[in-house]
């Protein structure tokens, strides 16, 4: 394998004037260069796979501002008291060991004509291929009365780390019999079952620590992911504690007052002790700056995750608009591997295999009560299209639910090792 690729490279370099070679070499360096923006589920995986599989033939740089990535996945389990924050943090040492050049900084500009990325620290990086996996940002004015300056009074906890810790602290400080409110987001958003797993975990915490407290969810949607499973679990485990107000009852017509700590649902004003506002989402800002978004998201080609706007820019994970896959860590990781294979093939002539995607999302409803939903996907000309899928059933035995939970723990170890090495 390695010998073949070397031969191919040598031959192509020698004849590069005559051939329209599939690779472009960055000025000054002998190697093709890939820059990855965002070291989360999509970006860390892509950087690691390109570096590991190309065995030094490609120069891979990852731009990520934080030194420790706190996963959003399992952050609800932290709220429920099943995980510690430390267990959710991952450093980038493994990526550096795999040969990735990790730069802790923000990307603030992308010039697609000169193929350059500008960092907040002032550096400019040239790329042959650029991978964007910046996750999400929030749509302005999505929830009346809320903007990011209110995120301390009313946290979203929809990016990992400090926001999640803040929400947990507020939950713990709730007065006896207090009200925990959630403003759920409209579609599409990251982790479709996420808000409802969170409601389950908050209920689990309150049942043990503040059993007369109430949870109210204002939801702009008429239905949600794994709805039958969650509603069954809420009725069986947290009877009477959770009040879900869907679209039909005005759940989409909300306004918050972060100073007065009130939530108005369809005109009815409720005093709340904690208010978890999860606004409508859009692609992380840098995707818009790079000019690859259309509306809120960045459309991509399903076969390799390349942007519809630029064949040398790829968009992974939550920021991409790809078709049928949910915005999840599992999906981002799956897309990253297809993209890594395509980029490596384009830059070094290595074998490119057909795109293949899959996703499974596990959720915890109560102790040892896990459920899951999953599907496989393929690339069509038009989009990533669903092939087949499954979902846990209502009424499953406690053994099955426990096995599902244990499986989710295995998945967490697996995906974080796959991302960070």
């Amino acid at each position: 394998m390695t010998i073949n690729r070397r031969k191919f490279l040598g031959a192509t370099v020698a004849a590069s004037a005559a051939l329209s070679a599939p690779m472009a070499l960055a000025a000054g360096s002998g190697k093709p260069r890939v820059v990855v923006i965002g070291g989360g589920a999509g970006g860390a995986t892509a950087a690691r796979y390109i570096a590991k599989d190309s065995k030094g033939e490609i120069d891979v740089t990852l731009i990520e501002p934080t030194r420790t990535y706190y996963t959003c996945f399992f952050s609800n389990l932290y709220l429920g008291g099943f995980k510690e924050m430390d267990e959710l943090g991952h450093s980038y040492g493994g990526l550096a060991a795999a040969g990735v050049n990790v730069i802790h900084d923000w990307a603030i500009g992308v010039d697609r004509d000169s193929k350059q990325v500008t960092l907040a620290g002032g550096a400019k990086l040239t790329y042959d291929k650029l991978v964007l996996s910046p996750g999400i940002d929030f749509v302005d004015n999505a929830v009346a009365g809320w903007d990011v300056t209110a995120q301390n009074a009313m946290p979203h906890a929809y990016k990992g780390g400090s926001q999640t810790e803040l929400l947990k602290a507020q939950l713990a400080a709730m007065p006896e019999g207090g009200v925990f409110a959630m403003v759920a987001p409209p579609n599409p958003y990251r982790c479709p079952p996420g808000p409802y797993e969170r409601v389950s975990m908050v209920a689990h915490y309150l049942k043990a620590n503040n059993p007369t407290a109430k949870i109210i969810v204002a939801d702009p949607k008429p239905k949600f992911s794994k709805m039958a499973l969650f509603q069954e679990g809420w009725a069986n485990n947290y009877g009477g504690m959770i009040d879900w107000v869907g679209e039909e009852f005005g759940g989409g017509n909300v306004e918050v007052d972060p100073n007065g700590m009130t939530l108005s649902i369809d005109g009815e004003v409720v005093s709340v002790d904690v208010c978890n506002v999860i606004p409508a989402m859009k692609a992380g800002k840098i995707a818009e700056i790079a000019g690859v978004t259309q509306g809120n998201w960045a459309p991509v080609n399903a076969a390799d995750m390349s942007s519809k706007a630029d064949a040398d820019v790829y968009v992974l994970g939550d920021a991409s608009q790809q078709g049928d896959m949910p915005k999840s860590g599992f999906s981002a990781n799956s897309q990253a591997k297809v993209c890594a294979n395509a980029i490596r093939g384009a830059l070094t002539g290595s074998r490119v295999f057909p795109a293949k995607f899959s996703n499974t999302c596990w959720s915890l409803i109560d102790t040892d009560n896990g459920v899951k939903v999953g599907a496989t996907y393929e690339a069509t000309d038009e989009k990533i299209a669903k092939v087949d899928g499954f979902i846990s059933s209502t009424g499953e035995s406690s053994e099955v639910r426990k096995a599902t939970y244990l499986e989710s723990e295995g998945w967490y170890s697996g995906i974080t090792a796959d991302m960070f090495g």
Partner: protein
Amino acid sequence: MLLDFSRIGLCVTLAVSAFSAHAESVGDPDAGKKVYRKCASCHMVGDDARNRVGPNLNNIIGAPAANIDGVKYSKALKNAAADGLVWDEAALNAFLEAPKKYLPGTRMSFLGLTKSSERADVIAYLATYSDSSIAPEAGFSVSPEILAMDGDVAYGEYLGSECTTCHLSSGANDGIPGITGWDEADFVTAMHAYKEKYRDNSVMQMVTGRLANHEIAALAAYFKSLGN
């Protein structure tokens, strides 16, 4: 693909016996649990199982006969073991139908299970206490042609990246079993068992559901190459 001839031989036998029984009786471990009551007065199985009148039956599927130290086996069974008797699904099936006929001189005083479905069920139940990574599938096998396919390791590496979202490439088990270093025939058999829904796990059934035979062979070759 490196062929393990002892296993191929075994699988050929299984293929013949299981394919004939295949359609009408696939063992159901839950039903087998009830059937097992007839065995339970002498044989323990599961966590903390000890040898009682008869040996414990953990990991019985695929085990060489008479292989537990300290158990008083009959001469007949020891002789059969010396001749290479292995408790694969076919041998267990024949033995359980009429123990005294299959193994004259056995110490097991049990008349036998005349219903083939009961035998398949109890074997499926025992299989749940056998190390699934090496157990031949109770009531399930794949053809020798499929087992003999050569796997494309590079393609397996790409396809395998779908597996390593959950299965640790170190081979460790943190809640999901390790899949590295398996015997290729076992790997291929297990994947086909999920694909045909003989093995139970919705994620695995979904993932294997769209794998072609050569893709399963590629995965088996790749994960074998990662070692234990």
